[in-house]
């Protein structure tokens, strides 16, 4: 294995200078050789389900093809709750769907695995894309999204999303969300990697947190019912294949609850906590891909299961903060990426997949920084940024200063070591413009859905997506659900799953969805037996 340059030596190579011209960069074959999506043996063919025969990341495939956690016997005597619309997940997408649905008078229940607002929405720092500058148009936003996607996307979804963006921001402001403004009170914008115009509106480097704060307050002060600490372990269906509710598992009293619903909206986010290819992740603790598993079992069709976003700038050192995100805004504000020799090696505002791959190339070819214990990375030139824009960190990146404090480093004085971190699931459940899946009664919104981002998501498109499609799904479900009668609830689709597993000669010793990462150590920390089921039986 190529040896990188030691942390101390690399630090000695580094000097903060105001101007660093970009050398010639070779992007040819970069992704194919260095991006983890292209790793040999990273993908396998799915053996069961609606995507049988399709290519899927090996770890995700394993999870999609697990046995269910429950049997009919588990449901005997379970409490039954009725609601018009059940929303699984209490992040930004779930809350947006809930709020718009509840406005119509529909009965809405949000079930969260942890607590309302525990989500990746709060992790999003950079901002929201919206074409509001005078030289920008939704068409440009659309073109940028398609270009960086690097594979066919569902153009209708992208069109709906970019067109709805201004209204999304208006709605968020009406809910009470703050954005950074110029001296005239207009929204400030900045440029994201891979885009042609400054288009990202933001609130410091806390945009997602501010968004979640507002949505959470709005939900709490509405009629929406919220059940916390109730991971969903299975969906319910009837004999016609409609989704008719879900089985929740209460962490508080260790019992199952059945929710009978006319529509179910899955907003469970992504899969970062599966640590694909052994990568650290920027994702929230709950990002274990539950929604994908639940929807797939019911027959929902998925797409782009081989493509994930590795955010270029995850903190690599110190180790206890490994994976923590350093927002792309730092790069869009002008911070350079430097290798151990103190040289630039990539245009920092290329799409994320290319920047991430370029970082991995530096480390693979011996120009990375070796911080010991297998930790490697390259510098993000924060002192250089401060030199060019004095005071920018205090004004715009307070979160980064805080991360620095936790690390015992001052980013204004010392560059930070970064390495790509598993950030986002580009694909997901196929939906239409209302967020509906191919399963009647089942909607998916946010990161769990697919079709918008292709192989590479632009910064700021995920916060836009969750609100845009969250609201659409909420409105659509509320319009069509309350008039419908309740349907039967059963878990007979699990017989089909088990039949398929047996006929495909698949092992049935692991159970899904996994709900929590294995290192949660629930077997020692919790007396909740239901959680142990994600362990392989001996």
């Amino acid at each position, binding site marked *: 294995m190529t040896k990188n340059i030691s942390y101390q030596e690399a630090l000695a190579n580094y000097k903060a200078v105001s101007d660093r011209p970009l050398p010639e960069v070779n992007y040819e074959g970069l992704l194919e050789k260095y991006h983890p999506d292209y790793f040999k043996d990273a993908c396998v063919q799915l053996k069961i389900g609606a995507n049988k025969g399709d290519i899927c990341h090996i770890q995700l495939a394993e999870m999609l093809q697990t*046995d269910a956690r429950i*049997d*009919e*016997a588990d*449901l*005997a*005597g*379970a*409490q*039954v709750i009725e609601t018009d619309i059940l929303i699984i997940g209490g992040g930004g997408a779930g809350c947006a769907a809930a709020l718009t649905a509840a406005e119509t008078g529909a009965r809405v229940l949000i079930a969260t695995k942890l607590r309302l607002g525990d989500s990746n929405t709060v992790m999003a720092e950079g901002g929201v894309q919206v074409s509001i500058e005078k030289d920008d148009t939704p068409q440009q936003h659309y073109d940028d999204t398609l270009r960086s996607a690097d594979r066919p996307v569902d153009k209708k979804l992208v069109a709906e999303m970019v067109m709805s963006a201004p209204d999304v921001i208006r709605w968020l402001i009406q809910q009470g969300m703050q954005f950074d403004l110029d001296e005239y009170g207009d929204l400030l914008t900045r440029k994201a990697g891979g885009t042609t115009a400054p288009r990202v509106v933001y609130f410091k480097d806390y945009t997602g947190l501010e968004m979640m704060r507002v949505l959470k307050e709005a939900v709490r002060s509405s009629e929406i019912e919220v059940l916390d600490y109730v991971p969903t372990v299975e969906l319910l269906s009837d*004999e016609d294949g409609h989704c008719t509710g879900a089985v929740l598992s209460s962490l508080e009293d260790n019992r199952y609850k059945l929710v009978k619903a006319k529509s179910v909206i899955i907003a469970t986010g992504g899969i970062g906590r599966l640590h694909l290819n052994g990568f650290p992740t920027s994702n929230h603790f709950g990002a274990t891909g539950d929604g994908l598993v639940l929807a797939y079992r019911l027959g929902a069709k998925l797409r782009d299961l081989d493509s994930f976003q590795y955010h270029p700038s995850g903190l690599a050192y110190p180790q206890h903060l490994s994976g923590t995100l350093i927002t792309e805004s730092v790069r869009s504000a002008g911070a350079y990426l430097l290798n151990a020799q103190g040289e630039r090696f990539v245009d920092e505002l290329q799409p994320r997949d290319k920047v991430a791959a370029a970082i991995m190339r530096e480390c693979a070819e011996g120009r990375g920084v070796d911080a010991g214990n297998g930790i490697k990375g390259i510098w993000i030139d924060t002192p250089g940024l401060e030199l060019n824009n004095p005071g920018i960190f205090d004004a715009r990146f307070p979160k980064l200063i805080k991360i620095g404090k936790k690390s015992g480093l001052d980013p204004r004085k010392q560059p930070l070591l970064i390495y790509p971190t598993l950030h986002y699931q580009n694909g997901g459940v196929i939906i239409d413009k209302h967020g509906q899946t191919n399963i009647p009664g089942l909607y998916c919104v946010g990161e769990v859905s697919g079709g918008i981002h292709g192989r590479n998501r632009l910064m700021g498109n995920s916060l836009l997506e969750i609100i845009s499609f969250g609201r659409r799904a909420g409105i659509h479900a509320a319009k069509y659900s309350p008039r419908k009668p309740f349907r*039967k609830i*059963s878990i007979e689709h699990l*017989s089909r799953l*088990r*039949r398929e597993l*047996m*006929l495909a000669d698949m092992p*049935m010793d692991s159970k899904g969805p996994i709900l929590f990462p294995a290192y949660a150590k629930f077997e020692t920390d919790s007396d909740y037996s239901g959680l142990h089921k994600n362990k392989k039986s001996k």
Partner: protein
Amino acid sequence: MEKTLNQVLLHKNSRVGADYTLWKNGWGGQGLKNAMEHPADIISMIRDAGLLGLGGSGFPTHIKWQAIADQTNTEKYLICNGNEDEPGTFKDRVLLEETPFQVIEGATIAALACGINNVVFYINPNLKTCHEVMQSALAKWLTSEIHNHALQQGLNLKYTIVASSGHYIAGEETAAIESVEGKFPFPRGKEPRPTTSGVNGCPTLINNIETLCNAPHILRNGVQWYRDLGIGEANGTKIYCLSGDVLSPGVYELPMGTPLTELIFKYGQGMLVGKELKAVFTGGPSNTILTEKDLDVNLDFKSVSERRSSLGTGAMIVVSRGTGIVKRVAQYVDFFAAESCGQCPACKTGTYYMSQLLGEIDTGAGKKADLDSLVDLCNILPGGGRCHLLDGAVKVVDSSLYHFLDEYKEALSDDSN
């Protein structure tokens, strides 16, 4: 396996869809040809073959046919009953979708034998493909040489396809007559029988699709051939609908009298995920439950009824250990409560009350008094309705109480024992 599986009704010569040529090149039309040569012998052949009503009753087919044939009316009706709406039953769907010409040929033979001039294919509206396939097949039939030949022989039949109302109850004989007359399918009183006064007051023969499908083959191959198909004293074949916790659910046409264990473990490839068998709902949910000790039973009308159960439509819903019987029965009784037409007070209130009690017990809120009420209802209700819906609902409750009383007791909130 190949020798006994799908020998006749589901043989590849029968499963041709709406492809007339394929059907004709197989064995299509031979039964009708023989029938037209000796129309007077049809009913005696059906009698000697021992064909029984395969829609669930097991009633000897020739008796019904003879009763119609004895009527002197000029207008007579045949209703080919494909209303099929019972949980776990899906054989008529397969027959209508995949063997439409077999259905039409069978119906034509029945009409010929009984002097019927109106043939109605009465099909559940939810089975959209069945309607499409039957329409397409019927159009081809009406321009076929077989039909022309029949016309020359003086057999001028009017065929119509009627969508039933989609209610479960619409499959009941007299309800079907009401439905064909364009009314809501309320079952009628016991007299007069449809054989004397059915559709528009005319004698009406009502046969299940599967029953009619057997006629061409009996006429084609003879009585002895048909009798030899069955196992033991049983005759012919039966289409079994296997569903529930088995590895390979589906329709299996097997010799009448095939043992239950063979159906589940040989054709159904055994239990799902190695679970143990707990119970089998035979003939759909309006029947008595079979348990593990009954696995050796031969699946024919007589043998199954000797085990206090009945073969019914041939649906076998297999339930494994780990499935709550109370929940299952509650679901089925909910179904009956929802499907009760409501004209008989005992049925309307009885099914509703039973479903409420079962719901309470299943969700752990039931009391000893609720269980006692349920037991009482099983004694009071039977016979309280015009049709068999109420009796069917009681049968499944009664049988589950007989076999699984402990499960009911365990679920009670004030169980002291």
